[in-house]
């Protein structure tokens, strides 16, 4: 979707302001917002692409006015409602309201510790050979789906060069709608700054994106 999250190339947001000795979390609740997001991932209540899609679907004024972890908490609320983990009444009161369905089992500290240390890979067995190889010129499709996608708007319709075949990976565009993993070949594609931004581009810059095969077309 062409949402507020797709920020590459936007103007008007001002300078980058690094914070000296920035703490990992600026308030206690931020750590909890973070951990809740991780733990609901371990519990497999929904997948990460569905979570991202929900977050970027927030109305742009709301998206841009929430702090980073504020966005996470807001998205968690919406996901819990959508997936039947909580009711509006429960979110309001801050407690489970009986009668409710209890979870089959609780995620333990040990599982979380394990999650931190072990990868949960997104690569899958390929069923057909990759269409492109390193060095191929490809065009990113001019696509504007309403669903989740990981092809940023600024790259669409532009010609780049495949610099790496990453492997065959879960396809977020399908996964976010909870259809299935629908794995596709993933490539790193490099674009010239001048191709992306025209005469306003920095001639010394290139930008690489990781693009799934359905995003690309042969020249």
């Amino acid at each position: 979707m062409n949402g507020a999250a797709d920020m590459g190339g936007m103007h008007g947001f001002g300078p980058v302001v690094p914070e000296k000795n920035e703490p990992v979390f600026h308030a206690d609740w931020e750590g909890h917002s973070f951990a809740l997001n991780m733990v609901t991932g371990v519990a497999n209540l929904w997948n990460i692409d569905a979570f991202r899609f929900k977050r970027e679907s927030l109305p742009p004024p709301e998206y841009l006015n929430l702090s980073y972890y504020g966005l996470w908490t807001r998205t968690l609320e919406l996901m819990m409602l959508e997936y039947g983990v909580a009711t509006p009444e429960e979110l309001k009161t801050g407690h489970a309201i009986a009668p409710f369905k209890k979870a089959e089992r609780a995620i333990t500290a040990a599982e979380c510790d394990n999650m931190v240390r072990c990868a949960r890979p997104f690569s899958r067995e390929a069923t057909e050979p990759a269409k492109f190889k390193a060095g191929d010129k490809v065009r990113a499709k001019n696509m504007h789906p309403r669903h989740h996608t990981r092809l940023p708007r600024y790259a669409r319709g532009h010609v780049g060069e495949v610099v790496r075949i990453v492997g065959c990976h879960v396809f977020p565009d399908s996964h976010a709608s909870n259809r299935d993993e629908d794995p596709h070949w993933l490539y790193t594609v490099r674009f010239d700054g001048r191709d992306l931004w025209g005469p306003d581009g920095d001639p010394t810059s290139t930008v690489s994106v990781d693009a799934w095969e359905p995003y690309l077309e042969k020249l």
Partner: protein
Amino acid sequence: MNGVHDMGGIDGFGKVEAEPNEPTFHETWEGRVIAMVRAIGTNGGINLDMQRFSREILPPQVYLTSSYYQKWFLALEQSMIARGMIGADEVEAGHSLHENPPLKRGTFTMKDVERVTTRGSFRREPRLAPAFAVGKRVRTKNINPVTHTRLPRYARGRSGTIERINGCHVFPDTNAREQGENPQWLYTVVFSGHDLWGDDADPTLQVSIEAFEPYLEPV
């Protein structure tokens, strides 16, 4: 500039909500704002393109959460402060605290009202023949200036057809920067929905923009 004001094709803003029997102004102050913008714009030499740019450079979060006339007001206040016409301290105090030079065209009085409630002409005498003829295929340039432009992002780098030549007009891109009227030929360029949005387009859709000659190149 690629600001949040450039909204064509952005998802997530929700439904259009029309208000039955909408009044011209919802609050008395809205009328005062539009009147002040017209008066100061005309007699203070802040042209239409500068006014538009002053609204586009409001912080994105502010732009998206302010009402229409709030944006007009904030932009008027900021442009007058930036031009030294008023001081920030005066706005705070609600009274004039310093001497200021008069407006370019003097005090805005009753004799000026007729001039602002009827529309001026932006048409200018051409010095060159138009570069493109009706029916010609053209491509909009991929430009990404940080300054004011009237070529929307969704229509950049796209092929379309010249449908009409609208005469030679003041060029907003330079006029907004006080770099002169720099008149340019203005064309109606029509695109198919597919040219703009790819396979996600409504097949019955055509969109046209009014494009100044510097936005276009031959295909």
